């Protein structure tokens, strides 16, 4: 790897350095735009005691859900974990700690982490269990909570197309948390569907500039659909 070439040749290499007890920030919303193969690699490595920051925790048997099977995750920071029986079981058993975080606050925490903003105020969660232990402060007559930013040892991200420099674009709503996660990892690993030539992406269309990306790999994706809904006709 010389200069700005971020491409690595294997998933082993992509996740090299991941250790027990680390924090991993993952892109994706539901099963849409999740870094499927990077998650599988984490399972393969059997890294334990991980803190995972991700809006959801996949489903039983797919996505981040597979990391629950061997109890690799000790803490989840998520906004919604509804569709996962194993998750609920481990949570109720006390095997898994969950920090439920409002979706917009979670997104902003990731962005802030990447942007060198250690904390910000938001009205979201005032007067709710989310406010417990947090500073409440008034601005302009309204109450706001102080929320601290999140950074991860690793960020795992699913892109659509990228060039070797790590400039990434996302496809449709598979964008979601991915560009935010990408800014917030000490080591940011992106897997994409397609590698394009440097210069092929319009500079104004790039969602994640290469400066945020440490490692890049091209993968094959199942892209499972969680709720297949069709229009009649």
């Amino acid at each position, binding site marked *: 790897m010389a200069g700005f070439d971020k491409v690595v040749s294997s998933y082993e290499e992509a996740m090299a350095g991941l250790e027990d007890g680390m924090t991993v920030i993952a892109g994706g*919303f*539901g*099963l*849409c*735009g999740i870094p499927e193969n990077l998650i599988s690699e984490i399972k393969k490595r059997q890294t334990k005691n991980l803190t995972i920051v991700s*809006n959801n925790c996949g489903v039983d048997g797919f996505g981040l859900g597979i990391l629950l099977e061997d109890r690799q995750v000790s803490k989840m920071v*998520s*906004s*919604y*974990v*509804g*569709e996962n029986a194993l998750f*609920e079981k481990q*949570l*109720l058993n006390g095997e898994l700690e*969950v920090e*439920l975080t*409002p*979706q*917009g*606050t*979670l*997104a*902003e925490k*990731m*962005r802030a982490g990447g942007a060198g903003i250690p904390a910000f105020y*938001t*009205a*979201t*969660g*005032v*007067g*709710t*269990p*989310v406010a417990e232990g947090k500073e409440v402060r008034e601005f302009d007559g309204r109450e706001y909570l102080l929320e601290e930013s999140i950074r991860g040892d690793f960020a795992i991200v699913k892109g*659509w197309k990228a060039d070797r420099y790590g400039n990434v674009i996302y*496809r*449709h*709503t*598979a*964008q*979601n*948390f*991915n*560009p*935010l996660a990408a800014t917030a990892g000490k080591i940011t690993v992106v897997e994409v569907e397609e590698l394009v030539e440097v210069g092929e992406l319009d500079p104004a269309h790039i*969602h994640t500039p290469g400066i945020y990306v440490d490692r890049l790999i091209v993968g094959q994706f199942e*892209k*499972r*659909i*969680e*709720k*297949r*809904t*069709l*229009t009649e*006709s």
Partner: protein
Amino acid sequence: MAMRVARELQDGFYVNLGIGIPTLVANFVPEGMEVMLQSENGLLGMGSFPTEETIDADMINAGKQTVTAVAGASIFSSAESFAMIRGGHVDLTVLGAFEVDVQGNIASWMIPNKLIKGMGGAMDLVAGADNIIVTMTHASKNGDSKLLESCSLPLTGKGCIKKVLTDLAWLEIEDGAFILKERAPGVSVEEIIEKTQGKLIVPDHVPEMQFS
């Protein structure tokens, strides 16, 4: 209920419809009126469900259903999506709830020791919008009122709800009370009084809902 919510729409409204019942509202947008649906996973301009030919795993809504985008749609990150929501740029938010009380508090995300799914975007939605309609059944299956003097479940938001639509009535919240504004077709004022636990103000005349 979706039909009654649709009456609150205005031409040019950007609307976030929660998951479930509220989604149906999209089907009742009046002729000649344009509204644009925001889905908090990062889509402004949500269209109908796709066909077998156009279904795409990368195009979903906040309910994780496959959808399409209308012409003029934009797609963005979750941070940008909640910047819109938190920043008060959405004109109307419709969402479900377990309980609402006379202080405008809402509980919709957690039943201790029973249901822990997470709040998703609901706390951001209720904190960010001025104009919120809560849609829910007036009472639970075993008859307990969901319109309370004070919410018993963990809150989603404090003092943020002003309009509630149930299967029985359209109510507004003002100065610590529910004001009964409209009855659902065929529902009596007495039934609404009986099934409302929180302070209820009943005007002399309570019209039946109109849906046109």
